[in-house]
């Protein structure tokens, strides 16, 4: 459409003001992460007063933070493995169903994914206290799966749906079993979808906060929760908080750029045009 100058001006004003609103807090966090403790509380503040790596050095040499970071890597990867292993066969099966049963199962899957995490925290806390899963990585992987299995099923189904059934029928006529048809034909064809789902699950588990806060203490504490240890009562070390925040953001940022094509459709979890 051809826009008048006034309309163009409105478009630029709306988008650039919003981009400023979006970026300002993040830029401020990054600038804080390079400041010393004194510069952080300087009044009036300025964006770049000094440039030091001391916050990053302090965070990266903090064994507790490194332990938590490594926990996040293990827990997120574990959640990916468990969820993909369970969700892919189910999605494959569901994509071959039609009508009421498929819609019924999908609605239920969507409801589970939509429920607020708070609903699950309390019963899991009680159960884990009984069976010794409090403060374990396995425990977090399990409760993360409550959300990531439905998420994965929901995202992978359209990729299986998109495979023409003639291809699978031809394989069966050639003597392949149904399982072979899935592993040799359907899964390779849906591989890009499955891979981006895996990354999305990784991001979900990496970002998860409530479960990690309530179900871990030290051994299985994740990176997102470990920042809280810099926000103590005796005075928050904002430089370290900002540096840790930036470090936690980094892997998620890399992954999301990798799957940016799928990100909008998939995070919508069923929003269709």
């Amino acid at each position: 459409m051809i826009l008048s100058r006034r309309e163009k001006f409105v478009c630029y004003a709306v988008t650039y003001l919003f981009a400023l609103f979006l970026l300002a807090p993040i830029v401020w966090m990054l600038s804080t992460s390079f400041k010393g403790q004194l510069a952080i509380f300087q009044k009036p503040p300025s964006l770049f007063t000094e440039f030091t790596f001391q916050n990053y050095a302090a965070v990266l040499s903090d064994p507790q933070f490194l332990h938590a970071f490594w926990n996040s890597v293990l827990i997120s990867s574990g959640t990916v493995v468990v969820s993909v292993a369970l969700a892919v066969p189910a999605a494959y099966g569901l994509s071959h169903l039609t009508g009421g049963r498929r819609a019924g199962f999908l609605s239920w899957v969507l409801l589970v994914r939509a429920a607020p995490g708070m609903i699950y925290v309390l019963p899991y806390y009680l159960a884990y206290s009984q069976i010794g899963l409090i403060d374990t990585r396995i425990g977090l992987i399990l409760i993360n799966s409550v959300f990531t299995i439905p998420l994965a099923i929901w995202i992978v189904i359209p990729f299986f749906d998109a495979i023409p059934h003639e291809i699978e029928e031809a394989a069966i006529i050639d003597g392949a079993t149904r399982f072979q048809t899935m592993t040799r034909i359907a899964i390779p064809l849906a591989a890009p979808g499955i891979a981006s789902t895996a990354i999305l699950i990784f991001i979900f588990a990496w970002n998860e906060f409530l479960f990690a806060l309530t179900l871990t203490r030290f051994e299985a504490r994740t990176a997102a929760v470990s920042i809280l240890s810099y926000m103590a009562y005796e005075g928050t070390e904002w430089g370290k908080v900002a540096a840790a925040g930036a470090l936690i953001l980094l892997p998620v940022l890399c992954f999301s750029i990798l799957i940016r094509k799928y990100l909008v459709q998939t995070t919508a979890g069923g929003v269709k045009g």
Partner: protein
Amino acid sequence: MHSSRLRGYGLYILPTFLVLATITIVPLFVTFTVSLFLIDVTSGLPPVWQGFYNYVSLLSDSRFLNSLVVTAELIFIPVALQLLFGLALAICLRERLAGTRWMRILFLLPAVIPPAVSGLVWKLFVIPGAGGLAWLSGLLGIDLDIDLLSMPATALATVVVASTWVGTPFVALILLSGIETIGKDQYESATLDGATWWQTHRYISIPTLAPIIRTVVVFRILEALAIFPIIFVLTGGGPAGATEPVNFYAYVTGFDYLQIDYAASMIVLFFLAMMAFCSPFLVQIARSAEGGAR
């Protein structure tokens, strides 16, 4: 597909179905059962049956009633703002003006930032007198040295802004992908008929997007209901409960005050209210995902 062939696929679905049912439905029953007993975790005494006593107490618990109001505020204000700004941004980004393409990638950022980090990003931004907000207002010549998080109204406003910040770009991108499926010729013929830019969007874009808008709103409301890390990091529910929604009150009751039975009753009510509101929409959304079924 023949029913005999169909039956075989049950084997692929069943194990996942059983796992998922166990890890989701069983906990809900546990929560409900817990809410019916008096449980004192600190003394270790055996649970005592008390029926629906907790539910009756909730109705006269002013802190709970306040948290209901806060929940409503934290749902309707941010979701309305997200939709308003998201729509405006989608319409502007659709034009693909030079220098706006990069924003499509920038807009992915808030959707993937760990929510706890979003909370601390905003906490750093509003440090009284020394944060990014004070810096920005200083550029405009205003000396802003107040603690926004210390007063109920401004603390709530800060949470609303943070939650709008997280959700808007995502809403914009979804609406944008919807708008881009509308044919160019539709806009062109409307323009030829004398419609202004505003009118084309008012009478073409918005009505066409209506189903997407409805779905997006449902998901944003669900997201807003679950808001926790931002509040935990930013305000801790304070001051004086001004930013304490139901699920945060339930968390404090269960994990700080260790009144798990009382917390359980809140969670059960919260869950039932959520289900009553959302399940019709969710079932509809699931049905519309029939598309590829063979």
